[in-house]
């Protein structure tokens, strides 16, 4: 069942300038997508690319300039935790208030109320004014109310970093439960982990447009590529050019058979702060770095090609890239970076089991 649909949605903001004429800013342009029940949609992209605007439109707090939006009701927007909390009122009063905003109704049952308090771990403080809460406590309370609302659509904007590790585990479990109940969840996060492990699908945004609608892994690697392009493009004489990857027989690879890899790297370090190092990292699609090769500290300005030979790259099945960067040898700050085309290490992959470790080992079984 379709829970949310955007049809040719665009949103224009008017930017006011003190001295010049007003300028129009298209925060979103021609957005089209649909979302099914139980889908978890991740929104990925740089700051200001339109992700939050999309959530605001979905929440109905602002209207699109053109196009139409359909969403199921009720919606629990978690654009900010504890929006509407009043500092002078107690946790108890604020739960009722926030709950009514999220469609829980003021005649919320006591069992649900207790459940919310227990989830937020605030049993001791429920009659304390919220202004005496720590920021973590306030955020936990806001989160607890939102995930106990009867929402069929949950909009989450970068609020998952609240609480300690244990609380985050609880958030994840609760959201998985909601998803399994058929709640559609839309998630904005700059934390790859949430996008990769929790989302079933991801939209990549660039300057207000959806540039790709695909799996979380794929969206994240495209996003990385996009980031690298944006990175280091602004400095003269500091860049990493094309990174070509070959196998043991010097053929360009898209699939790796064997364990020998050669990489040819074009770089320009003529304008760089000395000394610097060239660093090559082998990165798997899920973001895990499996190997790293570093040059000595180099202290001559140069530009040209470097060749890296790796003999024993025993990788498990998966997609990989080589990530090449120029780094300051003293501070290890990345000055420029680039990634190669992806290549596949073929083999049997069981989705439910996930990745099979990091390195490939030779192994035998014996039974007595």
């Amino acid at each position, binding site marked *: 069942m379709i829970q949310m649909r955007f049809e040719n949605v665009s949103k224009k903001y008017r930017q006011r300038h003190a001295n010049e004429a007003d300028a129009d800013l298209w925060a979103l342009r021609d957005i089209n997508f649909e979302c099914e029940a139980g889908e978890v949609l991740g929104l990925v992209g740089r700051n200001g690319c339109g992700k939050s605007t999309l959530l605001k439109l979905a929440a109905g707090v602002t209207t699109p300039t053109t196009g139409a939006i359909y969403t199921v009701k009720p919606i629990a927007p978690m654009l900010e935790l504890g929006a509407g909390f009043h500092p002078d*009122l107690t946790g108890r*009063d604020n739960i009722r208030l926030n709950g009514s905003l999220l469609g829980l109704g003021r005649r919320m049952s006591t069992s649900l109320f207790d459940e919310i308090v227990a989830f937020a771990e605030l049993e001791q403080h429920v009659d304390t004014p919220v202004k005496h809460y720590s920021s973590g406590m306030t955020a936990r309370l806001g989160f607890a109310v939102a995930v106990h609302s009867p929402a069929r659509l949950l909009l989450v904007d970068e609020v998952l970093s609240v609480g300690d590790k244990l609380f985050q585990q609880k958030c994840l479990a609760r959201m998985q439960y909601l998803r399994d109940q058929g709640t559609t969840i839309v998630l904005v996060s700059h934390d790859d982990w949430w996008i990769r492990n929790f989302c079933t699908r991801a939209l990549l945004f660039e300057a207000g447009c959806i540039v790709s609608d695909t799996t979380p892994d794929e969206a994240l690697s495209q996003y990385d590529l996009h980031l690298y392009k944006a990175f280091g493009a602004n400095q003269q004489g500091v860049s990493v050019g094309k990174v070509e990857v070959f196998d043991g027989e010097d053929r360009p690879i898209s699939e790796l058979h064997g364990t020998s890899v050669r990489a040819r790297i074009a770089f320009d370090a003529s304008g760089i702060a000395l000394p610097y190092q060239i660093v090559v990292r082998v990165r798997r699609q899920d973001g895990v770095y499996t190997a790293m090769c570093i040059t000595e500290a180099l202290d001559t300005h140069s530009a040209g090609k470097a060749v890296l030979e790796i003999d024993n790259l025993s990788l498990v099945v998966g997609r990989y890239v080589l990530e090449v960067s120029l780094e300051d040898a003293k501070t290890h700050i990345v000055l420029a970076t680039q990634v190669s085309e992806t290549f596949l290490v073929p083999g049997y992959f069981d989705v439910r089991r996930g990745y099979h470790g990091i390195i490939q080992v030779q192994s035998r079984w014996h039974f007595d």
Partner: protein
Amino acid sequence: MWKQLTALLQARDILYTWTLREVKVRYTDTSLGLAWIVLYPAAWVILFTLLFSHLVPVPVQGLPYPLFVMTGLVPWFFFSNTTSNCVSSLKHNANLIPKVYFPREVLPLGSVLVGLLDLMFYLLLLLVAMLYFHVGDGVKLLMLLPIIMSLTALTLAVGLLTARFALFRREVQLLVPMALQFLMYMVPVFYPVEIVPVHLRMVYLLNPLASLMDSFRHILIYNRWPDWRAFGYASVVSFALLVFAYWDFKRAEPQFADRL
């Protein structure tokens, strides 16, 4: 507009908790607490009595002046306090409006409901004073109900309009308190309508608030029915203004979040 009213009806839980919140917030953390609600009008009654009963006497047809001025202050407090609360009702919730959708009229409406609660309490004080001074007629007091309804409609209309315009034009927030101060002299608070020259009285009563406040006083202490034509006119204007204000408010509502 029908659809919007249904949506508002569905949001009555929000309205209820919001109004409760406003009331609670007001009386938590003030050392005098509930005493404020008595001290505030008492201070005004004393001031006006000193000024217009002793220094510059105002003719009040032999009624005790404190009682007279109370019948003017009660509706005036309702109107002016509610209006100034409404003006900032959207602005003060700038952190909430862009984050959650709910019918925005809940915010000014909440201010009006809080004002109504105060009005009820003040009316109670007034009735006690009337018993003390042996003034008033039981049957005519029923007429208070339609007067208060019209007064509420007018106040809500002004509240919706000012709240919405305060978002679009900064000056509104500065202008409203000033306008209210002027207005206090243009409605019968501390003087009776009768001191307005006859040939100007028509113009004076064109202001629906002046009409309603005069009717209010007539019922309570002059023991006379109000001037029906003036009251009817003021009620029609008030409700028509409310319909317009609500329509205008809902029309502007989609832009609220972007304007904050």
